[in-house]
């Protein structure tokens, strides 16, 4: 065979292979597109039928025999469930039970052949939050797949299945840090019912570990139940770990109330600047005027964050403005900077400039404007 024929044959083979690949790709895309269109059509049909069930009290429109095993139906059911609240959720729950959806999902979660199938079942059960799946979800709180465990917790949280609280709190001890935070999020759905188990967990574990208790404390702050204040104050007294202290101070600032003021004020002398900075923010959030002298002192702290947080807290505190304006022409230039920044953030500087423009400045306006102009001039 001549060289020319070899090249010709090679070109033909390359062309043939390319043609087969392109044809295969087009076929795949066509099949995929048809499947997507078909899926969307089925989903749309299910949404319409479900809508009729919600709109007519005694609607008997059938969903189709395959609904229980059709992912398009599950998708539609979950989406409709997210759209409505109230008695309609009961209607949707009844439909899910009538068509055996929950039973099918529980079966898939228990005996699913692939990881994906089990995970999809867990996500769907979590989304549907049907009480009949609570026991199965409880069993899967210790599943070997992390995401399945998490979805089980999410579902139990959604249905507020209180017997699951201890099981979920226990996961905070064994999960990785990222998962702990997500498990903690599922407890928020339980509200005040999760307060006691979480505070117990924090009190028992804070001397031995950091991340779990810190996550639990943040969850308590998000739940916002004042019953957490007393146990958290006890933890604040005992804690030697600054990370735990910081989380507790932040939570106490959010939870607020008269009981937290004195303990927070005492922590303003902490040797750790991170604790002092968080105390300043916490005292500002609580908003008690008795904290003003402590925050004014904190504006002279050696650490910039503490000074900044203290000034920002004073800007929120009733009567805190006096301390801020006093710091402007006080002996500590760093405190002056922090105070001027906080006043500017609060809008005092802009208001002073507006009044200056119409010749109606007050004595405090002039003090602030003079300070800011002097600060601007120095670096130039």
């Amino acid at each position: 065979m001549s060289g020319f024929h070899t090249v010709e044959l090679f070109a033909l083979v390359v062309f043939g292979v390319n043609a087969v690949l392109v044809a295969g790709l087009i076929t795949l895309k066509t099949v995929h597109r048809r499947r997507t269109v078909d899926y969307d059509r089925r989903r749309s049909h299910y949404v319409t039928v479900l809508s009729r069930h919600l709109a007519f009290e005694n609607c008997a429109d059938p969903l189709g025999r395959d609904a229980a095993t059709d992912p398009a139906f599950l998708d539609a059911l979950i989406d409709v469930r997210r759209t409505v609240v109230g008695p309609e959720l009961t209607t949707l729950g009844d439909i899910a039970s009538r068509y055996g959806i929950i039973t099918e999902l529980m079966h898939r979660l228990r005996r699913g052949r692939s990881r994906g199938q089990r995970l999809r079942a867990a996500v769907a059960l979590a989304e549907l939050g049907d009480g009949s799946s609570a026991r199965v979800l409880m069993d899967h709180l210790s599943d070997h797949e992390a995401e399945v465990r998490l979805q089980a917790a999410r579902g139990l949280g959604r249905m507020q299945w209180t017997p699951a609280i201890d099981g979920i709190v226990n996961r905070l001890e064994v999960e990785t840090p990222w998962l702990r935070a997500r498990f903690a999020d599922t407890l928020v759905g339980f509200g005040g019912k999760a307060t006691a188990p979480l505070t117990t967990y924090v009190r028992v574990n804070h001397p031995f570990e950091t991340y779990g208790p810190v996550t639990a404390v943040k969850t308590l702050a998000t739940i916002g139940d004042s019953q957490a204040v007393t146990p958290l104050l006890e933890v604040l007294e005992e804690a030697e770990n600054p990370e735990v202290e910081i989380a507790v101070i932040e939570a106490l600032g959010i939870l607020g109330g008269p009981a937290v003021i004195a303990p927070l004020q005492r922590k303003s002398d902490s040797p750790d600047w991170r604790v002092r900075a968080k105390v300043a923010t916490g005292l500002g959030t609580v908003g008690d005027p008795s904290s003003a002298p402590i925050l004014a002192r904190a504006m002279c702290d050696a650490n910039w964050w503490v000074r900044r947080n203290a000034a920002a807290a004073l800007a929120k505190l009733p009567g805190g403005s006096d301390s801020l304006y006093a710091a402007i022409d006080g002996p500590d230039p760093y405190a002056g900077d922090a105070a001027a920044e906080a006043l500017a953030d609060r809008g005092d500087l802009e208001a002073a400039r507006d009044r200056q423009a119409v010749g109606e400045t007050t004595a405090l306006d002039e003090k602030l404007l003079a300070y800011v102009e002097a600060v601007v001039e120095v670096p130039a």
Partner: protein
Amino acid sequence: MTPRILIADDSETVTSLLTVALQTSGYDVETAKDGVETYEAGKTGDFDLVVLDQLMPGLLGLEVIQKWRNEGVEHKVIMLSGVDDDRFVVDSFEMGAIDYVRKPFRLPELLVRIKQRLDT
């Protein structure tokens, strides 16, 4: 005459649910699935009420109202939105919306509000 209602929402689930429920109650319903389509429909159509989502592709709900106003088009608008922000609720009323319903919503409650707003 049958009242005409425009449902503007990018969620097919919401439009389907409301279409079925409102048609059952005897209303004439049209739907739009994005901001531009809503704006065009409202500009040319004669609707007695618009149920308007905020977060839609193309134009936001409040932008649609603003554009209608700029062109002298007035509609009774009920905002139906998942935006959980009091500031946004205030903005909606300031822009001329006559009611605000948060998603997820109670279907019977929304239907009663629609009926009331059509009657007033």
